[in-house]
Each structure stands twice: as structure tokens, then as C-alpha cells.
């Protein structure tokens, strides 16, 4: 799928490379890691194409559990099997866990001060923007989608309205809009294949 002319797409060179790459990602991810993952793994290291990232993210999101942990496990598994999966998850969690526990121990007394509360609010607002901005950036990957632009836009709009404005539980939205989308995509893929067979 990746269109690299030399046939060798970029990949982690060793388990240690995998571990430290994910540690670096995790330590930059204040208020969530997703925006950093997209920028580092897709844009900088190019271990994943934008389309691969979308597909993996869809799987990571629909399965239970912390999304970025699921995603790192899937990426680690693809390159180094179960050892890669464990290594990637360890990289994602080990140092951040130490830091958050140290912070809890050190800042237990001053967490309620107005300055800290304000800073938390400010970083929270930016973190919200980072997630939404990552979504905006990925819109361009829909161009190659088999369902076509109008259907894609409608599905996005329905999902956004249901979750953000109407607060419908996620499971219902995934079952409803998700099933509809998958059935439609299945039909379209079938048509594309039939056309390909005729030519």
C-alpha cells in the first residue's frame, strides 16, 4: 500500500528503537497522546501512511481499552510480534507512570491553588484543540474512500451531531452509523471489484 520506490518503507530498527520511540511520544503527550502519534509516526518517521493510520486508529478505537495503548500494541506487534507489542505498550506507559506518581506525591498539597487550577484549565483547552485539529488533518485521507465524498460527509455529520450535541452513548452510534457505513462500503467495494473484473 505504501508507495515507497525503493521498496523498503521506514520501520523501527530494533525493540529498543521501538521502546524509546514510544517513550518519546508518550512524554510529549500532555493531555493525551493521539496528536503526537499522528505527527511523529506518520509525518516524521513515516512508519505509517495517513491511510494506514486511519485504519489502525479505527480498530484501536472500536475495541475496548485505552486507544493509544491499543494502537501502540498493534504497531509493535506488526514489526516484532508479541515482543514488539509488549515493548511498545511498556514504552507508552513506564516513564509516564513514574512521572504521574511522582507528581501525585509532590504536588498533593498545592493542586488546589488557583494558579495550578488555571494552568490545568488552559492546557485542557489546548489539548481539546489538538485532538480536533488531528481530526481536521485526517479529512484529506477521505479523498480515496470508496464511499465517495457526499456519503462520507453525511456519516461524519451524523456522528458529530449524535455524540457532541445530543450526547448519544458511543456504543449506539458505532452500532447505528457504523453498521450503515460498513454495509455501504461493502456494496461499493463489490461494485468496484465487479467493474475491475469486466475490464
Amino acid at each position, binding site marked *: 500500500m505504501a508507495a515507497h520506490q525503493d521498496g523498503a518503507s521506514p520501520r523501527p530498527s530494533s525493540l529498543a528503537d521501538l521502546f524509546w520511540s514510544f517513550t518519546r511520544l508518550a512524554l510529549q503527550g500532555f493531555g493525551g497522546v493521539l496528536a503526537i502519534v499522528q505527527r511523529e509516526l506518520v509525518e516524521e518517521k513515516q512508519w505509517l501512511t495517513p491511510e494506514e493510520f486511519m485504519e489502525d486508529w479505527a480498530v484501536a478505537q472500536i475495541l475496548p481499552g485505552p486507544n493509544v495503548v491499543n494502537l501502540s500494541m498493534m504497531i509493535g506487534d506488526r514489526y516484532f510480534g508479541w515482543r514488539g507489542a509488549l515493548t511498545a505498550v511498556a514504552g507508552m*506507559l513506564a516513564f509516564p507512570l513514574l512521572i504521574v506518581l511522582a507528581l501525585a506525591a509532590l504536588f498533593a498539597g498545592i493542586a488546589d491553588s488557583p494558579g495550578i487550577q488555571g494552568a490545568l484549565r488552559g492546557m485542557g483547552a489546548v489539548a481539546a484543540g489538538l485532538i480536533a485539529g488531528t481530526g481536521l488533518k485526517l479529512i484529506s485521507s477521505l479523498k480515496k474512500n470508496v464511499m465517495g465524498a457526499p456519503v462520507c*460527509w453525511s456519516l461524519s455529520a451524523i456522528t458529530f451531531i449524535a455524540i457532541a450535541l445530543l450526547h448519544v452513548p458511543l456504543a449506539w452510534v458505532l452500532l447505528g452509523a457504523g453498521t450503515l457505513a460498513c454495509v455501504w462500503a461493502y456494496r461499493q467495494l463489490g461494485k468496484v471489484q465487479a467493474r475491475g473484473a469486466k475490464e
Partner: protein
Amino acid sequence: MTASLTLNLTFTDWLALLSHFLSLSLLAIGGAITTAPDMHRYLVIEQHWLSDSQFNSSIALAQAAPGPNVLFVALLGWNVGLNAGGGMGAGSLSWVYALLGVVLTMLGIMLPSTMLTFVAARWGHQNRELQWVRAFKQGMAPIVIALLLATGWILATGHDSSLNNWPVWLLTGASALLVWRTRLHLLWLLAAGGLSGWFGWL
């Protein structure tokens, strides 16, 4: 963490803590944070193992610290353990209990979901040429994008959706645009957000 509690947890209680998080793991679609309301019900209201302020500051601290947000679960376990050991001033036993709390809660929330994801993702990758596996990935793409936009929206408007909150929305909107259109390092954006909050502009 002014209002900390002192607890006396038995072996069965620790087991109950582990099994509650094990049972929540497979329900955590969309991330562990979606099960936070149930953790609150169990830990604060039903068992009285945590105070309300311990619960809320665990989530806020994990959001602000680097790393996946699931680490708020580790902080919940940490605080339950501290309470069981008699608080931070009570010596090394409370640290041991706190670490035990971290291990049990994290193991519980992670183990079932990561096992399932590992098997399912492997299967999906091996069968990625099947038409309905491809249909799933293509079909979910616009929904995933909408979920990201919706998550940003909910986080930005969560605590206060009145118009008085406009500086927060402005900050969120501006950072979304900057992420989308520029390659500015994300840490600069977070630092700017933290500072503007520190100085009370939000």
C-alpha cells in the same frame, strides 16, 4: 487531597478492587475515561475508599501530566492504597499499599482489553484482503474523524457551555487551526495554554 480517609482493607477488598477493574476493562470502548462514572460510583459512593476530591484531582493530574490518559486509573489505585496505609505521612507501609493499588487497578483495566485487541487486531491484519474487513476500515474512516472532532468539542465545552466561556473556546479553536495548518511543535501550544491559565486569562 485534604480530605483523605483511613481504611482497613482486607484481602477480599483488594481482590474486589482488582475484579471491579477487570470487569470494567471490556466496557471501556472509546478509552478508559468512558468508564470513569462507574469507577466514581464504586470507589467513592459505594465503598468509600476515595474522597470526591481525591477522585477529581486524580483525573485532572493525569490529564495534565504527559502520557496516556488511562494513567488516571493508576492514580486512583495509588490513592486507595495510601488511604489503606494511613496516608502519606504514615511511613513505608502506605507506600507499599499505594504501589499495590497501582498494580491491581492497572492490571485490571488493561489486561482483558489488551488481550482482546491483540487477538482481534492480528486476525484483522492477517485477513485484511477480505472484502468485509476492507469495508469495515473504509466505512469507519469518516466516523473516526467525526469522533475526534466530537471529543475536542466535548472537552472544550464540558465544564461550562455558556458564552462567558469564550476565551477557552478561542484557545481550543486556535490550537485546532494551528495543529491542522502549521508544523508548530505541540509543546509550545500546551505551554501557551498553561501560562494563559496560570495568569488567570481563562
